[in-house]
């Protein structure tokens, strides 16, 4: 199949973040800030394939471009404008990197190790990204309830449609009586379901303290885990980035989720590929999402609120470990 190589490429990209811990600074920055739109030697995505770019462009141009592409486009830099037109007029965003960070990325790009990224991982055994059925028990129950009620609705409509083959007057009083029965049983079901489900909420209660607090900052098109809260792009440098988040199995973790630009979604996928827990990431607010991890494995985080051109590429992973060294 002609998509196979594409899929291998994409899966490699997805595996890549797991190796931040052992990779150079430049590689880590690339994974966090650039991989949503670029590959090295795996073909173009939203932006160009960056393989060999350090040979075709001079390093001063590259450094400035990586720091402030918006200004260069505004100034009408010839290369910038040509690239912009070539790439469907989707401009590369200003990612707030400083000159050293830009140099680190350039060094990484120049090292030519990009294509071999995941393979170059040393130490950590490759965690597989979640792939599987994607249904947990809530999803199963909801789907079955939906199918069952839908089947009843269809049967009733079919039955009524068929009855018109045999026209006769209907007894209105009988219909009203049936309606009353229908209403009362409907009411009982609705109230019963409300009573059993209403208080099962994901909202953190005041009681109880989590085993660990992790701050999550979202920005187009990244998730950043930190030790300390982040209120602005500057804080990202000082808040203690957690490059490779590992959590002990059985722990209750509170994610404090916010956004530096537009609304994003923080959607945790279980090792089986099912939505495990989620909350929205909103500018100016911090949503506290408490999650108990009872199963070890690699959890992915996907963006669950549309946030612009690379929304579907915005992702990260973390690991829940069985042993206690985490």
């Amino acid at each position: 199949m002609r998509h196979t190589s594409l899929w291998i490429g994409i899966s490699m990209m997805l595996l890549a973040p797991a190796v931040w811990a052992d990779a150079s600074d430049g590689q880590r920055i690339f994974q966090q800030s650039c991989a949503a739109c670029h590959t090295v030697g795996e073909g173009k995505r939203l932006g160009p394939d960056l393989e060999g770019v350090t040979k075709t462009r001079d390093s001063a141009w590259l450094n400035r471009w990586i720091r402030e592409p918006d200004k260069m486009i505004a100034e009408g830099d010839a290369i910038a404008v040509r690239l912009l037109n070539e790439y469907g007029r989707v401009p590369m965003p200003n990612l707030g990197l400083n000159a050293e960070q830009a140099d680190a990325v350039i060094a990484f790009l120049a090292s030519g190790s990009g294509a071999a990224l995941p393979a170059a991982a040393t130490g950590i055994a490759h965690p597989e990204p979640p792939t599987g059925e994607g249904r947990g028990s809530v999803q199963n129950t909801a789907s079955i309830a939906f199918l069952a009620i839908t089947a009843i609705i269809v049967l009733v409509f079919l039955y009524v449609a068929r009855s018109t083959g045999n026209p006769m007057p209907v007894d209105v009083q009988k219909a009203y009586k049936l309606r009353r029965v229908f209403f009362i049983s409907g009411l009982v079901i609705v109230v019963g379901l409300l009573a059993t489900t209403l208080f099962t909420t994901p909202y953190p209660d005041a009681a109880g303290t989590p085993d660990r607090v992790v701050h999550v900052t979202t920005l187009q098109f990244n998730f950043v885990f930190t030790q300390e809260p982040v209120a602005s792009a500057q804080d990202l440098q000082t808040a203690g980035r957690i490059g490779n988040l590992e959590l002990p199995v059985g722990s209750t973790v509170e994610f404090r989720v916010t956004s530096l630009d537009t609304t994003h979604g923080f959607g945790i996928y279980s090792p089986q590929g099912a939505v495990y827990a989620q909350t929205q990431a909103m500018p100016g607010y911090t949503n506290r999402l408490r999650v108990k991890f009872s199963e070890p494995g690699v959890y992915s985080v996907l963006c669950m609120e549309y946030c612009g051109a690379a929304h579907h590429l915005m992702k990260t992973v973390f690991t829940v470990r069985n042993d206690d060294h985490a």
Partner: protein
Amino acid sequence: MHEMKKVTLGWMAIVLVLFPILLLLGIFMRAVQANGLANAEEWFYPFMTLHGVGMVGVWYVGAMACAERVIARYTGSNDGLSYVAMGGTVAGVVLLLVCVLGGKFASGWYFLYPLPFKGTWPIWSATTFLLAMTVMGAAWLVWSLGLLVGIARKYSLSHALGWHYIGGATEPDVPPAVIITTVSLLAAVASLLAGVVVLVFFFVELLFGIRSDALLMKNLTFFFGHVLVNLSLYLGVAVIYDVLPEYAGRPWKANKIVAISWNSVLAIVLMAYAHHLYMDFVQPTSLQYLGQIASYASSLPPAVVTIFGALTLVFHAKMRWTLASGMFFLALMGWAIGGVGAVIDSTIAVNAKFHNTLWVPAHFHTYMLEGLVLMVLGYFYHYVQEHTRIPESGLVRILTLGLFVIGGYGFLATFYLSGANSVPRRFATYPAEVAHGATDSAVGVMFAALFLLGLVVFTASALRRWFRASSDG
């Protein structure tokens, strides 16, 4: 033979032209998600925006145009008002096309603050989009208020809302279509006013740089969107209340129960919007509970009164089955099924898993595509068919309804399946975690193409009657 209104034929033409185009954009999106159009990926989100805004708008104006024609029997008609709304709608569509095709504007249909200002698109395109929304919002607000005034000329507000039935009186006779349309128009005014406030906040930021509160904007935005979509369906239901009895040969009158039901719908639908913010944990928890209670409660009146009423109307009736009456009957079924999908997702515990997965488009496409679309197209068809009385071909009827059902529900099934399997909505392509979404998309494309085929067959026979009717008119 009733008189043909040019303005209604005009609305019918607008809907028949825009629907297939917007539908093709839907098929395009599903094809991209199936990895079938690798080079066109950059157009996914702009076209998603165009498809979403376009569809919501088309079916809202379509439902308004039908309800306006139906209640004109009782309240008299005001074609000038309708033309104003049409002018505003067309101007809005043009602006929308400019910002999406020219600026790749892609905020999604509900343009959640502050995304329009944070995109990869130029600022002029965001401004143009906001202008498009303003023009349409203003025109529709005038339309809704104008129709309310028209109703008020004939009925007092308490009669138009059927309060005298609730009080135990049986006179004066107010047709259900009038009661439901009044309820819907009041909801429309509330919804559009919320929309206007959102737009004002956007323009304040654009002009003066004053930022808005993201949570407040989200509440307003979803109040606007939720109410607008629901009231569009209510307008469609008002039309069915009026027209289905003609095919069943039995009356369908307002009474105490009908009045109570629709008045409670008005109150409940305004509160149920809160189910869109379950995953915003900073929202006051009492509002979250209110959201679930109101969402559950909103299922009872339509199920017990409207669906039940429609089924008793048809049960053992000497039914005149035609393309139009078949579409109305199926539309009620689609509304009910989509409603079930919605109520399930409005359970907070379920929403924690389903929020922003494809389950969401699954359920709203059900009551739009297999509900409102059939109501509005069914009424337009009925309108020109009653006038022209061109004999209806049984083959065309079977083909149209069959393709609508098989194509539509097959397409919807792929959304539900993906949603249940955790595939997120609004992903141009799917990462490895949810790669199975691509397979579902490919199947979805095929079924959607069947629906499109049904639409072609339908449009051919509807247009034939349209041309005959407009040359007679």
